[in-house]
């Protein structure tokens, strides 16, 4: 069924698992920000909601993934709506700062309220996703494929078309009678939901949730999505997958790795602003159509 059924390299499996989860982070960022043009600079807050909720529960009751994942989905969707309601009327840098503020408040609180959150040490001892390394990988892979597929289909659907129209011109959509607030909030809820589920899966995957694996993601999600290409879910997801994969593979280079990462980002914003995979996709399509003409 999958491409790697005989995969026995645990290290690669582990890197793959992380990379596909990051693909979901990037795709879920794209679903709100890439589609509607509301650039969320605090995506980590939505990931944190899912992850920390699982952490809170498991510090009293060892919750199993089959229960916690749907729970995380509901809670993070509601959270997305609650944050979305007041902030979605904001535009451009105002929205960016509002979301950044939310994520920073979360970060500060999760350090300060250490009785609840474990502070900088985070919450550990969360039930593992599954018992084995390989089964965990398949679990993560299945979830990631499903999540990306659902967002992709939603994005391709009429719903996604309306979201894209909002990116271009909210007034024009309102004039046609489209309830723009409903769509913006829905997009926020979907984005937040998948971010939250991914957050809860990560908590189960590591058996841990803490600031070190959550808060850098506000920025990383944007980078991954933008470098991959926004507005189409799959390019963003591929951006998330490959950047993470490469970054893990290069981790022996330490600081050079991070430096290289930012160089890739800078070069791609300057020279391939539509995103690497959007660009490649377009190239393949034109080659394809040329071949078709022949």
């Amino acid at each position, binding site marked *: 069924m999958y491409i790697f059924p005989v995969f026995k390299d645990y290290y690669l499996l582990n890197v793959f698992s992380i990379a596909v989860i990051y693909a979901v982070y990037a795709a879920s960022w794209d679903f709100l920000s890439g589609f509607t043009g509301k650039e969320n600079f605090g995506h980590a807050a939505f990931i944190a909601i899912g992850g920390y909720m699982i952490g809170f529960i498991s510090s009293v009751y060892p919750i199993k993934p089959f229960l916690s994942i749907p729970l995380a989905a509901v809670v993070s969707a509601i959270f997305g709506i609650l944050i979305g309601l007041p902030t979605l009327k904001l535009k451009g840098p105002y929205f960016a700062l509002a979301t950044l503020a939310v994520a920073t408040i979360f970060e500060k609180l999760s*350090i300060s309220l250490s009785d609840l959150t*474990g502070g900088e040490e985070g919450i550990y001892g969360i039930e593992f996703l599954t018992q084995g390394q390989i089964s965990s990988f398949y679990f993560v892979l299945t979830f990631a494929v499903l999540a990306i597929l659902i967002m992709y289909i939603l994005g391709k659907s009429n719903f996604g078309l309306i979201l894209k129209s909002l990116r271009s011109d909210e007034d024009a959509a309102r004039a046609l009678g489209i309830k723009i607030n409903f769509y913006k909030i829905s997009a926020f809820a979907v984005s937040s939901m998948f971010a939250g589920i991914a957050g809860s899966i990560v908590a189960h995957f590591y058996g841990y949730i*803490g600031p*070190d694996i959550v808060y850098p993601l506000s920025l990383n999600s944007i980078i991954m999505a933008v470098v991959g290409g926004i507005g189409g879910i799959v390019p963003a997801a591929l951006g998330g997958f490959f950047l993470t994969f490469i970054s893990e593979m290069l981790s022996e280079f330490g600081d050079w790795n991070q430096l290289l990462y930012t160089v890739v980002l800078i070069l791609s914003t300057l020279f391939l602003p539509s995103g690497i995979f959007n660009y490649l996709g377009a190239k393949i399509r034109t080659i394809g159509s040329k071949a078709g003409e022949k």
Partner: protein
Amino acid sequence: MKKVLSFLLVVLLSFSIFAAAKTWKIGVLGPYQTENGMWVQQAVQMAADEINADGGILGRKIELVFQDTEGSTQKMQTAIIKLTTKDKVDFIIGGVGSGPVLANLDIMARQKIIWLGTGAASPDVTKKVAENYSKYKYYFRVGTLDSIAQGKSVGDFIANYLVPKYNVKKAAIISVDLVYAKEIAETAAEIAKQAGVEIVYTDYFPAGTADFSASFKKATEAGAQVIIDAIVTADGIQFTKQWYDLKVNAALVGAIAAALKPEFKDQTNGKCVYETSAYPNGGPAPLTTKTLDFFEKHENLYGVAPGFISFPAYNTLYVLKEALENAKNPDNDEDVIKALEKVVFPLGGDKGVAPVKFTENHDLVYGGDGASGIIFQWSKSGSWNAVWPYEYKTGEWEKPEWINW
């Protein structure tokens, strides 16, 4: 021509035989882009070179595999999996930061790999071993002291030195808002309280705070004579500088991580004088007969003094060496664990650079002939003196000249 070729072949073969000779493959975890990680890397390398030069352990050389954990749980997990499955290491040493280590104990348990830890100071780490010995027995804390023990050494100094000598009655806690630091400060305060000191003010500031004047002011207005601090972040530098500049009328005693190295003097532009911090089981004091030599050798080798994680990092390989040499079967994990549990580097002895003795939960024994915390002070003359306990004293504690109690 043929001769040359066959000669080359022989040379190549002999190389490959040489390479195939069995080694102790040891994975080293650390955030190498930080100072803590650098200490681990340098000290472990130093110990390995020494042991290898001396013929290795049981005739087998040590081969180190360094993996950068970038200070993140996720990278540490990937690193452990890579070390255990791909590099197939025999042991893991290192691991800095309680969060990542705690989170990865389960991975260690799953991979069943012996882990000699160096830089996770949360008491919870070895609590895990206590809770489920058979699952977590692979972990040994070679260092540093856990936060409770670090707090104890600060508290003991206040209770047994400052209180009797200077009749200290009131103290304040000003510490960074991190779990590890809070535990140190609270433990120290608890011991001080038992000695009759009243805690008149408590403030936890977020990492990255620029201005402490309000906290100092409130502490001294409440009558504090001593400020118990625990600052594991770089904030300790500006904290100390501001304390000096404001001539705060309370002595600074506690655990400022940045103060535990000679560079502190430059980093504060000399405004570190009178600052007093506990060095967890290490420092330029004769903890064992080798400690001061190690300090000097490290400085000569790397151009910088060892940090507080350097001591346990250096010790790990010697602890391992001792255990392997005494183990019934050094290739059997169970036997090695049993041997490790018996390792003792006594205080004042000649083994290791800091005392090591394990509790049944694989934590360091604190006090007695076990691990210890040494109180150091930056003296007015600019020297860095061990002032407590008396056995290791290299100087007398000085009361800041501006303080009027």
